[in-house]
């Protein structure tokens, strides 16, 4: 049962239905990619899984290793291992990166447990080095004054430090130049393994050259309309999204 299962999920934003019965299973150890045109509901899916208060779930379920997480607060979901790399990471003025990640790790410890500072910093520095993030970033406020690429790298750094069970990467490639894309992808790839299930959301096939998915799904109008292997991404890149709209809804994409 080690998987994140999304079952016939329906959700509204401001009274408008965006997800219309979406089903998907992300197994541990696998990387799934969701591609789709703008407005297909990709970002909504990530926010709904993470529990953003603006999104109202009207049907279906999200099961983490067999248990529904829809009734949980966003932070409870996170502590159970759901990580969302934001498309637009927030700035938190006055809170340093090091303190922020530390607070997030501390929140995962039991009552009375304290994070060991030396170990924490050793790990933090190692992860930062591999993501080519300068050490000075530990003392900078979270995302404040960061370039687009720095923000995305910082998201992956947080992911590397928090070691989630399931990670959703929402358009992590947007706004990145090719060099930054390579660094970010390398970071993600280094975290791949039997203990991580990942969902990579992207508009472009380009990212999937660097983070190779096991499965590719196409999303349109709030549903998965087509699923396949990595080759589907190339097909989309070549043909665009228009032809997809004529396809019948993929039956039982789960």
């Amino acid at each position, binding site marked *: 049962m080690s998987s994140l299962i999304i079952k016939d999920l329906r959700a509204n934003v401001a009274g408008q239905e965006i997800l219309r019965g979406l089903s998907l299973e992300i197994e541990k150890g696998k990387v799934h990619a969701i591609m789709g045109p703008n407005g297909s509901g990709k970002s909504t899916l990530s926010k709904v899984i*993470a*529990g*953003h*208060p603006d999104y109202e779930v009207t049907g279906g379920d999200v099961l983490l290793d067999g248990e529904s997480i829809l009734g949980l*607060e*966003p*932070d409870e*979901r*996170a*502590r159970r291992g759901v*990580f*969302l790399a*934001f498309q637009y*990471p*927030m*700035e*938190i*003025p*006055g*809170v340093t990166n090091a*303190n*922020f*990640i530390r*607070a*997030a790790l501390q*929140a*995962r410890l039991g009552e009375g447990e304290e994070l060991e500072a030396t170990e924490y910093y050793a790990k933090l520095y190692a992860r930062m080095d591999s993501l080519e993030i300068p050490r000075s970033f530990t003392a900078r*406020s979270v995302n404040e004054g960061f370039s687009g690429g720095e923000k995305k790298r910082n998201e992956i750094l*947080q992911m590397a430090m*928090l070691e989630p069970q399931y990670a959703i990467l929402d358009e992590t490639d947007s706004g990145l130049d090719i060099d930054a894309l390579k660094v970010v992808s390398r970071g993600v790839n280094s975290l791949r393994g039997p203990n991580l299930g990942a969902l990579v959301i992207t508009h472009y096939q380009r990212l999937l050259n660097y983070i190779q998915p096991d499965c590719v799904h196409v999303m349109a109008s709030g549903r998965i309309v087509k699923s396949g292997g990595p080759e589907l991404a190339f097909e989309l890149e070549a043909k665009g999204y228009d032809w997809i709209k004529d396809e019948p809804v993929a039956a039982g994409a789960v």
Partner: protein
Amino acid sequence: MSMETVNDIDIDRSAGDFSYPESHKYDAGYGLTSETVNYISKVKGEPDWIRDFRLRALDTFESRPMPTHWASEDLNAIKFDDIRYYLANGQRPTRSWDEVPEDVKRTFERLGIPEQERKFLAGVEAQFDSEAVYSNIKKAVGDQGVIFMGSTEGLMKHPEIFKKWFGKVIPTGDNKFSALNSAVFSGGSFIYVPPGVKVKHPLQAYFRINAENFGQFERTLIIADEGSEVMYMEGCTAPRFETATLHSAVVELVALKGAKIQYITVQNWSQNVFNLVTKRALAHEEAEVKWIDCNIGSRLTMKYPGVVLKGRKARGEVLSIALANNGQHQDTGAKMVHAADETTSNVISKSISIGRGRATYRGLVHVPKHLKGCKNNTECDALLINPESRTDTYPAITVRGAGNSVQHEASVSQVSAEQIFYMRQRGLTEGQAMSLSVNGFVNDLVRQFPMEYSVELKRLIDLEMEGSVG
């Protein structure tokens, strides 16, 4: 002379303890009349000029109306007749540890206040023995010729310095509460730093805790002679468990030519306290005065630290943080009076209103005519946590003459919902996320606090934020 001073402190204190063995003799009773004032002066064995000063102040206090035409109407709730104006050393009302409310005990626990201090802070013990720490400081500064003692001692032992500046920075009639303090003051510190002496250790009121220091009407006078430097810290982040409902201190600082004074206050009053404090500094040529002021708790705090920039190129600064929770009104601010050319002043104020708390900023910047090259910069930022939270900003700026520049900026904001979601996605609870945000909001100011204060302050903000969400 320095060593003598140190010894004097000890001798005097024990002498004081022995000479008034019966408790009623320390107590001026309830209410305020000229008899109360005479009594205080007599018990303290003060010279006539101080008694006359007190009596004149009493007249001023009585003749002044409550400043409710601009300040909170809540001031009218103060019952001057129900207040005890003088309790000598050792006469804090005591209670047993069992009587201390659980939430206060828990807070001590969470803040990591040492056992011994907890009992004092909770009013269980009248004295706090900090001699071990204090004697080191005394020795260190004593060797440099620094005078550091209680204000009563100061006025008796060093009248030649004391008299010259006492009541000169803040005249008795400055406001109703400075007059009240002038009539009944006891406790507080007197510090004199000789020319050129740079005091390395911060002088802390905290290390010489006793009833007078933590009294209701303390009076502090600090004189930094030419080219000297001193840092003074008062208060602590632990909540004060008070029975007295009125605290009205007067603090006067004098920075002579080229001297530097930093005065740091962190206060966390209990919910029933009116904290009405007058603080002002006189900065002579090229002197620098910096007030760092952090106000938490109390029912109503009114405090506007000021600097009169009297000499050329003098510099004044006020950095303040106010945290207003349910039922609290932090009415704080700063006054900068430019009285010489090329003087500069800087004010940064950050306030946080939680629940139905209210934070008010009042500022005064005055640049009279015929001055050149004066500059003031003021920034006020208010953070509102809950829908019922309230904030006000009332600056008053007067500038005469080209050649001076003054800037005031203020903003009001709330913690953004998206920011909170982002942090919760990383596993922080809503409360933790909110605390982190608020700590971030004040971070650039807190960084200027001494280390131990800033750590305590962060913990305190975490505590205050609890219950503000959900």
